[in-house]
């Protein structure tokens, strides 16, 4: 297995720059997920690592070696395409053997590897079938098998689950995680689904408009998003954003005015801010609880009153959608036993330890407390 380092990588089509200054280090055996909305450049970046797209600027190293000019086959990588890209005219065995034949492996060696991979992926009974005789899930496993037999240094996955139905997606996700553990392989995985990213990745790289927004472990991204984009992209349902104005800022905390007269202390590092600035408070739905009765008076200003517009019942919890008087729309996660109806007027209380502060440019202030 191997390490990968992207230094200052960029990509332009003519004068149109689509990737800016990508810096990333991938450790041996890590599963790194590139995630982001359509058009953020994640697939382009993956193809650059693969060698299917030329690199405009910067350096790509695999195992310390600069591979910018190397064709895909010489980089020691294998790629699983979104559409699986199986060779329609070859059997499953033929599909898996193709790369090995090119590499000059002996017949015995080929057979052994194919059989081993097929067994691991439970497709050994399909070896003589053609792709068109297989289901979507089976085809995907053949695509993975084709990659495995080449024993590459690096596995690349381009949205491998997006063509599967929901149930199969969950099942395959778990299998991929198991595969990663078994092979102890370095993998780069592209998806637009943040749930996939959160569950599979050792580390996640959130991309937007050709730039890396943040790279870190799933929990890091969730609890300490570097900016507004990451905060809204990761986490379902989306984080609540409340406009506010700073009153006093220090390294220990920021005092903000949420609505007229209401002031709150957010435990974040405000040294970069000045009083009187517009900011946004980020509150995750699980940090908003339905206030009962009088509630804690000291929390008065963290209470938002409004009317319930929608309730999504998930069983173990409910998602309660509330519209406040000033037009603010909030989502709160309430325990499953909560009984509420559409139209009820309720108050939502925010846990101050769960507050995020984003400045006018969307940058997050570092949180000093965790909730």
């Amino acid at each position: 297995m191997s390490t990968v380092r992207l230094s200052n990588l960029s990509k332009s089509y003519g004068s149109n720059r689509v990737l800016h200054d990508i810096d990333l280090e991938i450790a041996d055996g890590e599963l790194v997920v590139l995630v982001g909305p359509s058009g953020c450049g994640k697939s382009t970046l993956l193809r650059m690592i693969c060698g299917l797209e030329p690199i405009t600027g910067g350096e790509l190293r695999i195992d310390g070696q600069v591979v910018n000019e190397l064709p895909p086959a010489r980089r020691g990588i294998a790629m699983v395409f979104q559409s699986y890209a199986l060779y329609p005219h070859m059997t499953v065995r033929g599909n898996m053997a193709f790369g090995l034949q090119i590499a000059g492996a002996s017949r015995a060696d080929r057979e052994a590897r194919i059989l081993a991979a097929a067994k691991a992926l439970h497709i050994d009974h399909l070896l003589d079938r053609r792709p068109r005789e297989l289901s979507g899930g089976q085809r995907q496993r053949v695509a993975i098998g084709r990659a495995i037999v080449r024993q590459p240094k690096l596995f690349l996955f381009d949205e491998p689950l997006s063509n599967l139905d929901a149930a199969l997606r969950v099942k395959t996700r778990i299998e991929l995680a198991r595969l990663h553990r078994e092979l102890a392989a370095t993998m780069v995985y592209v998806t637009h689904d943040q749930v996939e990213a959160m569950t599979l990745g050792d580390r996640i790289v959130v991309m937007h408009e050709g730039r890396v927004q943040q790279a870190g472990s799933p929990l890091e991204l969730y609890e300490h998003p570097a900016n507004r984009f990451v905060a809204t992209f990761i986490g379902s349902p989306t984080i609540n954003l409340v406009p506010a104005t700073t009153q006093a800022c220090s390294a220990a905390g920021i005092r903000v005015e949420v609505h007229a007269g209401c002031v709150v202390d957010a435990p974040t590092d405000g040294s970069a801010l000045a009083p009187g600035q517009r900011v946004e408070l980020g509150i995750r739905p699980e940090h908003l609880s339905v206030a009962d009765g009088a509630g804690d008076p000291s929390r008065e200003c963290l209470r938002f009153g409004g009317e319930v517009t929608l309730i999504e019942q998930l069983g173990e919890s409910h998602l309660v959608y509330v519209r406040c008087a000033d037009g603010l729309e909030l989502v709160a996660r309430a325990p499953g036993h909560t009984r509420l109806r559409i139209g009820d007027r309720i108050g939502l209380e925010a846990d101050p330890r769960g507050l995020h502060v984003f400045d006018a440019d969307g940058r997050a202030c570092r949180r000093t407390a965790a909730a």
Partner: protein
Amino acid sequence: MKQKASWHAAVFLAPALIVYTAFSAWPLLATLRLGLYATDDTGHVAFAGLANFQKLLFDEHWWGAFRNAMINNIEFFAIHTLVQNPVALLLAALLSLRGVRGAAAYRTVLFLPTLLSVVIIGFAWQLILSPLWGVSEKLMDLVGLGDQFGPWLGQEDTALRTITLISVWQFVGVPLMLIYAALIAIPEEVVEAAQVEGAGPWRIFWRIRLPLILPTLGLVNILTFVGNFNAFDLIYAVKGALAGPNFATDLLGTLFYRTFFGYQSEVGSATMGAALATLMFLVILAGVGLYFLVIQRRLQRVAG
């Protein structure tokens, strides 16, 4: 999901069926039947069984003409298969490569001759190759091959080959387009997967692209076969019904025309023409049958 049939279906289908049956299917059957009749010198037509066919195959005069036309036709087909189709394959393969600038312009130009009338083509080339005009001779002089020039169209041993190449020149467009369409239908990711596995351009062509377009290549071949054994227009335009010099360019189509309509002193015979048409039909049927029953199925299996 098909709808249950109603009289609507009949109304929709009837006009097409009527015209097709009346002017294509029935005439063919009628011709096959007519081949079994003979016209004697008084013009009286009577049932004659296989007499016409016996004449065609065993009468020295008829057999000679038939054999000559048949052999010429086979050579005609062979040259098309060996020249037209590989050239079309090469051009289509080049056109379908990614990043070829001006591919659209090339496509447009390459398809042009196919649209032109055979008469035009025939005459244009006749003029160009004519020793009287001397254009070809001048052009060959430029490349230093001036003394290789000859009145190829007029010489018995080169006439057929020359006319065949003119036909190839004209009809490369059709297999070109068909093969091109098949090549671009191959998903790009499949080719990329092969690249990632280390396949170079040659290997990708032989192991990936070619197998996947085999059904199309088969189709191209059978269309060429049918078209070639039916050919008439070009020969007639360039050489007239006599397909000279000395029948060197005679094909089954021209022989059929002459037999049917007669030429010079020989009077035409509808029944002999019909018999000849029957033989042509059998040849074409054999070829098409062979293709569909044997070859096509195998090609489909390979292409997956």
